[in-house]
């Protein structure tokens, strides 16, 4: 049997949902924009020498002193908003994906280990996870971000701490089901170390629900980071993510200069909506209860 067959079958079903396909294309495009930002952006928004104050707070379509059109307007420092958004996307995507991956690894390992080990350690780990799940993620992230201080790594740590529990719960549920199956008994009866059975045999079979959680959690991580940065407890001023761009524009919103806050928000929403649409389709495809 071809090893790629499950993936190809999955892709064939995925392709049938046009909306999900478009969303996937949007994600790829945004990822490219974020990676290639220095090449695409008309201006390096954080090269302070290039900023001209007379360009500040200009509406969309204004032709600035740089000789090019500011399609999305400029902010209070005279930055081209389009460029600032591209650079902001870089930071938002990087933080969101990094936090998602770390939370995935820690959470999946914890949950699967708990299910595999059983007994008292399982109870202890899962009680702790449940306790944490009953507290809202934003609260944990808020407090941690406040205690740890500002910075990229601190931000990722706060997001991971707020999110790994979702992976742990899901992995635990899936692994507990797998643990009872015959192939695990068979693998355990061989001289393979328990660790190998857990990571090579059980975990791969727990992947489908974990992937669904992962898409949702990356979107959540991006939104959470933006929220914390908006509240002023997220990234430092030197790391202007989308949330901070929106926060900077807030004070100008009341005087009708909407674009400074609104456009970075639109970019953020397009990204998150696209991820959630793809996640939705993946969930529908992986949910055995909806098969008719």
């Amino acid at each position, binding site marked *: 049997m071809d090893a790629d067959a499950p993936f190809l079958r999955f892709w064939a079903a995925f392709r049938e949902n046009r909306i999900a396909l478009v969303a996937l294309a949007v994600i790829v495009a945004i990822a490219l924009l974020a990676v290639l930002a220095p090449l695409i952006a008309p201006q390096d928004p954080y090269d302070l020498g290039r900023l001209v104050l007379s360009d500040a707070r200009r509406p969309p379509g204004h032709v600035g002193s740089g000789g090019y059109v500011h399609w999305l307007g400029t902010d209070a420092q005279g930055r081209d908003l389009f460029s600032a958004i591209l650079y902001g996307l870089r930071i938002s995507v990087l933080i969101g994906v990094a936090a998602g991956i770390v939370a995935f690894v820690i959470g999946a390992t914890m949950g699967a280990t708990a299910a595999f080990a059983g007994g008292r350690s399982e109870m202890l780990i899962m009680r702790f996870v449940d*306790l944490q799940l*009953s*507290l*809202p*993620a*934003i*609260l944990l992230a*808020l*407090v*941690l971000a*406040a*205690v*740890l201080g500002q910075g990229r790594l601190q931000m990722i740590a706060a997001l991971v701490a707020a999110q790994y529990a979702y992976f742990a719960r899901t992995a635990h549920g899936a692994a507990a089901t797998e643990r009872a199956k015959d192939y695990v008994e068979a693998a355990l009866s061989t001289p393979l170390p328990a660790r190998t059975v857990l990571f090579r045999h059980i975990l791969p079979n727990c992947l489908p629900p974990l992937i669904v959680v992962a898409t949702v959690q990356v*979107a959540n991580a991006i*939104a959470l980071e*933006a*929220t914390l940065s*908006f*509240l*002023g*407890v997220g990234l430092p001023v030197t790391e202007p993510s989308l*949330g901070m761009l*929106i926060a900077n524009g*807030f004070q100008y*919103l*009341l005087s*009708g200069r*909407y674009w400074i*806050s*609104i456009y970075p*928000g639109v970019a*953020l*929403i397009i990204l*998150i*909506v696209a*991820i*959630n*649409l793809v996640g*939705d389709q993946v969930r529908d495809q992986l949910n055995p*209860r*909806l098969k*008719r």
Partner: protein
Amino acid sequence: MLGFLIQRFLQAIVVLVVIAALVFLGVFAIGNPIDVLISPDATQQIRLDTIARYGLDQPLWQQYLAFLGRLAQGDLGRSFVFNMPVLDLVLSRLPATLELTLAAVAGATLLGVPLGMFAGYRPHSKVAKLLMGLSILGFSVPTFWIGLVLILVFAVSLGWLPAGGRGETVTVLGVEWSFLTLDGLKHLLLPAVNLSLFKLAMMMRLARAGTREIVLTDTVKFARASGQSEWTILRHHVLPLISIPIVTVFGLEFGSTLAFAVVTETIFSWPGLGKLIIESIQSLDRPVMVAYLMLVACLFIVINFLIDLAYAALDPRIRARR
């Protein structure tokens, strides 16, 4: 039932001690405890007095026990910024937040469940697809940005509703409430809508997912075969079955709405707990942070307890087990 209550009460105490330990570790041990207790502009003499008084020269475990002891007596210290006992401060801000949160969660549930049930009952209709598309939007758009758009549209452009504050309040039972005056309601509307959109999307999706699965089950097939009307089936068979996950999520979301009120209150200058915690984080008013966290933990325990009671009322299987 009494045994159950006692068991839950003991569990709650264990959870509170664990949370107190985490809060203690997070705010006191990782942060510099001297910053926590003394305002930065205090004199050297005050510093030394306070260090001795709070036993900061003692080993950590002794400090923790002392912290627990003060906690048990309801002594959470004084706020540097407001110079009043933090417990009083936090409690005085609680009603505003509860009012906002309740309005948001109740609105989201009353509107979201029927819409979601419809979308699950007719999953392929245009309206259902539109509702689901909107719910993804409500799910994805960050609360703070919706708040900005609401202010931009309804306060700045149209000028219909105020952009911030609580408006005129009426004092009932010694507590000020906004929802009892027209002006207060006007002030409440935008923040409540802002806070509820995410929950509305969630309730809709949850109700839809539950309904979709349940209308395919034998329960519904038999009910149809017995000649009951579709309306009766939805009300008497589907709604009770989907209500269990909805009650869980309602409870959990009530808590998370309480936390998300931080964002909405900041944007709409709503003078509740959330605004207080953000201000105290920014001004390093750590006793307020500790008090806030402990209060939220207590609220969560109460909420979880109420969910368990609701479960027992809704699910005959759980009721039978006790």
